[in-house]
């Protein structure tokens, strides 16, 4: 499911783009590899920031600013209850596992 960023091309290369794509790939790999819900949530949310920077920095149309903000806030606000629920299960069960 994960594609190497070396085979992805784009018009006009700068080195920061590859850095963000690599960072995003790293965060995504980590999301699938961690064992507890808090770490999963942390990487889940932190995959949004490189995506937002990629959309804003290297998108093509001027609507990308609004689109990026829309994407970020929509996903962020919707996953805040998830944080509450993970904390709730942590408190209720006295400790968490998988």
């Amino acid at each position, binding site marked *: 499911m994960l*594609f190497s960023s070396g085979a*992805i091309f784009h018009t006009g290369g700068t080195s920061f783009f590859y850095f963000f794509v690599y960072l995003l790939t790293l965060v*995504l790999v980590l999301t699938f590899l961690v064992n507890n819900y808090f770490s999963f949530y942390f990487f889940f949310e932190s995959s949004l920031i490189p995506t937002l920077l990629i959309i804003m920095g290297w998108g093509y149309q001027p*609507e990308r600013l609004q689109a990026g903000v829309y994407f970020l806030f929509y996903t962020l606000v919707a996953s805040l209850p998830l944080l509450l629920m993970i904390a709730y*299960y942590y408190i209720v069960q006295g400790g968490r596992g*998988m």
Partner: protein
Amino acid sequence: MWGVQVKLGLGIFLFMVLAFIVKMPMYFTHLWLPKAHVEAPVAGSMILAGVLLKLGGYGLWRVWSLVGVGARLFGGYFFGLSVLGIVYVGLSCLRLGDMKALVAYSSVAHIGLVICGLVRLYFWGINGALVIIIGHGICSSGLFCAVNIYYERSGRRAFYINKGALSILSVFTLIFFILCVSNMAAPPTISLLSEIFLMGGMLKYDLLILLLFPLGSYLGAVFTLFLFSYSQHGKFYGGIFSFSFSSFLENHLIVIHLLPLNLAFLKFEFFLSLY
């Protein structure tokens, strides 16, 4: 007492699941997806479609052991919403003029199928959802790459500008068609496998699903064929000056997407063992 418990259960289920419902977009919460995909650069779009959406699916998988009981009580809402969402998104795809937006909406349709499979709590449904997630990730990513090939040459994502590519980039038509075959869930790709699994998992829910699920699947085929035939067949757009041949890098990139899709069905017991 029972009323209070059911209300609390709905709140917990919804809160736990809402993050993933938005991330792998279910129909009502999919509004960010066309915007983000259309505005993103190709690599961003590929990673978005290929992996980030699957994050939502994976997260749902992970919390399913906690809230899966809620799926029996409240899953009907998500099921009906997703099935109707497939039909609506399929219908709205036919009126789009933007290739990338069409691929983005087809993502929504596929993930609607995933949610339908997941809330049923059948073995076939959950496995079908997993196979769609894998197949759709590869297929959508490849489609974004393919659409970008036309976008880089003509500078526009519109259908009308990029039509008639069969006369111009003939070799690429074959590769594009095999990718579209996977998007419309036709053999011999794992998308067909996933739809067969899901059919087994979904159809017992209500008699109405017998009408809606084939309609949704059919509309998926319709808009994918619309994407393929509008961009490939017909007379090519008269306003182009030059159109470079597709380089090895572009062909290689898409064939990497094609090979897992078309070969993975040969060992599909691998997917059955993942649950």
